[in-house]
């Protein structure tokens, strides 16, 4: 809410600087986002009078002017066709213009120039801001304007405007008057009311106009008043300056009065040209489906029956609370006016405004909420302004169609309740004094206090609200910090899921990986980039209704896509290698369109490229992660479409696939701009790992004190035989005393034969009871060889 300090001063005697005032407002809950000094939009731009104009000796289009700027006369070279005698705005040496640029004296085509003639833009204004000023022209003043004064001051731009952020619970404070009341409380001053004082000149509004409200739910109050013999003219400079200061363009006296009252009292008003109201009646009703109205901004609006309209006997003449119709607007020759001051239902205005894409100062205030107290006050205030400005003759009487409403609310409370909420002492005198200043009367009834809250404070409904009203004025500095002084003991800490995530993250870091965090939504083209088949489940994405753009429109079903984008980003940003992991969710709908909340599956994604990085670097990281959770995986070939068909594996835990590891398929790599590096990527579901057993603490197991005996074996198998199968076969054979088996070497040569490989396997034997004999070991080795022969066709080399 733009709040000119001069306007506040109409109601409160402010004797502090705008900065102090802002700080005081912040302390009672009104954040001041900015303090705008209107006359500081540009500095060192002053009023000057052109006393002499000569041709520029070296340039036909330039003129050399002598400008009287009060204390001295300066020479300015300009291309503006001035003739001399004009009073204009000139930027002096060192001036800073509204766009931040600086003007310095210098030479223009060999002639000294000590400044620059300025137009609207240079001082941060537009043609709407200054009467009679043409766009593109320099600023011109009436002769006789004091020379040397700030040009903005001379234009009447000398107010200080506070930009106050009014919170949603205080819609009443979207008005100068209510803010003035708060200012008065903040400064400990009295607040005066905007005056209501006018004389009517006969007739009676009810004789010539009837108002019927068909939907009182959406329009609980509708007031109307009439003005005859209207004269349309521009508003006074003061009204125009104030409207401009709050960002409203002055139009004419009648329209300006409604906008002035809207700003001052916070009540949106509307003015109808009386002669356009067919049938001498106003009907407030729901629109009919398909009904149309051209609003004042010239836009055609298709209405439906959820929307409220103001009609005459024939047709809609305004969209209630949002904008008037073009058909009934105030014109140059309007002679009779009907003022509307009404209360419309907040939510309905909000919906209609959203649906029509039509917003106005009026609708934004109705959306926030208007109290019952404002309609009558605003209407009378508007009539006062009509009367004071001589804009017409006020017809006797007002029309007021309204539902019954409570004028005040009583809240019973005790000082103890307040103390229990705030945790600080609440002096009774201070409490009553503060509430009274805020317009809340307090009385005592059998030991309790009773606050009487008026209708304009719809936000105050209970004891907590009373506590807040008190403390925001009394000051939070009175609250002393305590730490659960009277509360129960609780023991804190993470749940299992978070502990598992934490362990995984720390272990993966230990493996040299860096944690990344990427957006949860992505572009739907990820599925094609990853070459997913048409029926791949990962294509079933949850789509946002209102995404920021197509590129961020679907919730991801895989982390791999983001990982690849991140790797590509790093590659193009001078990172020769990257090793990253992300632990985040994939969003998997149970059905589409979404009927219930989706499954948010925690996933681990690892991605890497760079020197020395290969499939087994990736595998090592994955196994480290699993090992941290006491898990071991098995691997079998994977045929995922985005992976290198020869270098990809499903990762199995307890026989079930939890994800994959592999090298990125060259075609997929190309779609990400990763074709010049080999990229390794893994994505695993972490959901099956959230079990207490994965968090088990290490437990000591006794180990043998007898020697371990090592044996090596080299066997030849077909190239296609996975060594994993060989190890599995040995492990499954339950070889006595075998404590470890491992592959130490694979070897291919012509001697071994084409399509064959030699596999070196190491075995460790040990017994807890005794030293094993060579014979025993030899027996077991024979068994092992037999098993390998039978299961994998191995031959001893």
């Amino acid at each position, binding site marked *: 809410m733009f709040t000119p300090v001069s306007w506040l001063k109409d109601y409160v005697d402010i004797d502090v600087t705008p900065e102090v005032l802002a700080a005081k407002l912040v302390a009672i809950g009104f954040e001041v986002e900015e303090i705008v000094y209107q006359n500081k939009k540009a500095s060192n731009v002053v009023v000057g009078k052109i006393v002499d104009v000569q041709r520029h000796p070296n340039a036909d289009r330039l003129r050399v002017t002598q400008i009287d700027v009060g204390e001295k006369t300066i020479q300015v070279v300009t291309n503006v066709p001035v003739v001399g005698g004009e009073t204009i705005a000139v930027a002096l040496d060192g001036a800073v213009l509204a766009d931040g640029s600086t003007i310095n004296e210098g030479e223009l085509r060999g002639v000294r120039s000590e400044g620059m003639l300025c137009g609207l833009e240079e001082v941060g204004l537009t043609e709407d801001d200054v009467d009679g000023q043409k766009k593109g022209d320099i600023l011109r003043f009436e002769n006789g304007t004091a020379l040397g004064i700030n040009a903005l001051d001379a234009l009447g731009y000398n107010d200080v405007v506070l930009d106050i952020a009014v919170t949603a619970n205080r819609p009443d404070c979207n008005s100068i008057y209510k803010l003035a009341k708060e200012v008065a409380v903040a400064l400990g001053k009295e607040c005066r009311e905007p005056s209501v004082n006018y004389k009517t000149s006969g007739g009676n509004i009810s004789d010539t106009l009837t108002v019927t409200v068909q939907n009182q739910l959406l329009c609980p109050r509708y007031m109307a008043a009439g003005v005859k013999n209207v004269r349309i003219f521009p508003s006074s400079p003061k009204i125009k300056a104030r409207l401009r200061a709050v960002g409203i363009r002055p139009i004419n006296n009648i329209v300006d009065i409604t906008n002035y009252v809207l700003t001052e009292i916070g009540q949106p008003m509307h003015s109808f040209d009386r002669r356009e109201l067919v049938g001498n009646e106003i009907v407030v009703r729901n629109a009919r489906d398909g009904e149309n109205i051209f609003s004042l901004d010239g836009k055609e609006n298709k209405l439906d029956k959820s929307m409220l309209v103001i009609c005459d006997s024939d047709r809609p003449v305004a969209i209630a609370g949002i904008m008037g119709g073009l058909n009934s607007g105030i014109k140059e020759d309007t002679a009779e006016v009907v003022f509307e001051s009404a209360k419309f239902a907040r939510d309905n205005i909000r919906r209609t405004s959203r649906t029509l894409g039509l917003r106005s100062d009026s609708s934004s205030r109705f959306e926030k909420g208007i109290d019952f107290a404002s309609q009558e006050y605003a209407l009378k205030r508007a009539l006062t302004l009509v009367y004071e400005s001589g804009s017409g003759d006020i017809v006797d009487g007002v029309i007021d169609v309204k539902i019954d409403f409570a004028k005040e609310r009583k809240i019973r409370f005790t000082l103890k309740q307040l103390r229990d909420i705030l945790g600080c002492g609440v002096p009774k005198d201070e409490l009553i004094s503060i509430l009274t200043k805020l317009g809340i009367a307090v009385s005592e009834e059998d030991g309790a206090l009773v606050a009487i809250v008026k209708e304009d404070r719809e936000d105050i409904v209970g004891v907590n609200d009373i506590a807040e009203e008190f403390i925001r004025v009394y000051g939070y500095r009175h609250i002393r910090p305590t730490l659960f002084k009277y509360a129960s003991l609780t023991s804190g800490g993470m749940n299992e899921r978070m502990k598992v995530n934490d362990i995984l993250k720390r272990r993966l870091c230990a493996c040299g990986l860096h944690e990344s965090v990427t957006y949860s939504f992505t572009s739907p083209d990820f599925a094609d980039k990853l070459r997913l088949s048409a029926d791949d489940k990962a294509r079933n994405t949850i789509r946002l209704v209102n995404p920021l753009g197509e590129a961020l429109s679907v919730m991801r079903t895989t982390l791999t896509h983001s990982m690849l984008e991140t790797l590509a980003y790093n590659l193009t940003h001078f990172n020769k290698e990257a090793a*990253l992991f992300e632990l985040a969710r994939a969003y998997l709908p149970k059905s589409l369109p979404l009927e219930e909340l989706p499954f948010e599956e925690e996933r681990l994604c690892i991605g890497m490229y760079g020197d020395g990085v290969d499939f087994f670097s990736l595998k090592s990281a994955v196994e480290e992660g699993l090992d941290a959770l006491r898990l071991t995986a098995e691997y079998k070939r994977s045929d995922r479409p985005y992976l290198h068909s020869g270098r990809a594996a499903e990762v199995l835990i307890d026989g079930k696939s939890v994800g994959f590891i592999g090298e990125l398929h060259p075609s997929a790599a190309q779609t990400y701009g990763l074709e010049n590096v080999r990229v390794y990527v893994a994505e695993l579901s972490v959901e099956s790992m959230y079990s207490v057993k994965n968090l088990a603490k290490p437990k000591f197991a006794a180990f043998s004190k007898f020697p371990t005996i090592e044996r090596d074996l080299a066997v030849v198998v077909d190239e296609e035989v996975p060594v994993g199968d060989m190890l599995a076969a040995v492990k499954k054979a339950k070889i006595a005393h075998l404590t470890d088996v491992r592959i130490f070497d694979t070897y291919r040569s012509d001697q071994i034969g084409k399509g064959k490989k030699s596999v070196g396997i190491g075995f460790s034997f040990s017994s807890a009871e005794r030293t094993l004999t060579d014979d025993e070991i030899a027996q077991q080795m024979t068994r092992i060889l037999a098993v390998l022969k039978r299961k994998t066709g191995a031959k001893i080399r």
Partner: protein
Amino acid sequence: MKDKLDGIKCAALDIIERAENTSQLNDARVKYLGKSGEISLLMRDMATVPKEERPAMGKLVNELRAAVENALNAKTELISQLELDRRLKEEAIDVTMPAKGKRTGTLHPLTLITQELIEIFANMGFSVTEGPEIESDLFNFQLLNIPKDHPSRDMQDTFYVNDSILLRTQTSAMQARIMTQSKPPIRVVVPGKVYRSDDDASHSPIFNQFEGLAVDKHITMGDLQGCLQTFAQKIFSKDTKVRLRPSYFPFTEPSVEVDVTCSMCHGKGCRVCKGTGWVEILGAGIVNPAVFDACGIDSSVYSGFAFGFGIDRIAMIKYGIPNIKMLYENDMRFLKQFN
């Protein structure tokens, strides 16, 4: 005989003296002390020595043997020392060459801050939990005293999936879930991703919040201040001061904005705090009784406080990160810094 002994002694000691390596020394040992070495042969020759001279002669030969052995041993020790020295010299490496093995990776700054926050609040008895990011309107708004079409919805730009499902705009949604699902005493914090449809220089459409909720008998605004002061002093510095300012959130009443003294300038005023000495870090308040009523907690018995803040913002303040977008670009040059 004696002359011979002296000759052998001279020759042997000379050879030993001149020996340069172990193998020459071994040769010398064989030559003199070996089975058919010169000194061993002397013993054999003893038979030719007259009987009465034998003891004296034997003594001389033994002395000779001892002298040669001593010389050999001394020289052996010397040479092995020299050889070891030579080997070590040969094996010298450039100790400024890089270390082997991969460096430990890094946790994301958001994770680092979250871990720090969790520790701080866990120590104050808060349990830690998470919740769904795709959330129902009910939990994200309605149960938090934000009905449909309420103006306070304008405070947050919401991404919708449909009329009743949205991307949570605040971890406060978990307040409603926790309060409808558990009984007081409640003391819980919730870190997590939240979503708002803002995307400009200072906003990211995704960011991380940290929510806190305490519900019990006798919880006051003083407890809120104490809890937040403890938090602020641990996450920033011991001398951090906390200031409450009145504000508005639909689900707390009274509501406050919480400022802390700027950790950059310790309240003196700098660029980070725009010269005010204070930095706004979070919103908080006493749980609105209307929320208790909606969630099925008896507001006449229980009271509580709640707070919420942006983890991203804390990370930016603490680490001096100039732009929120950097947190989501994952440039290795950025990530590696958070070691």
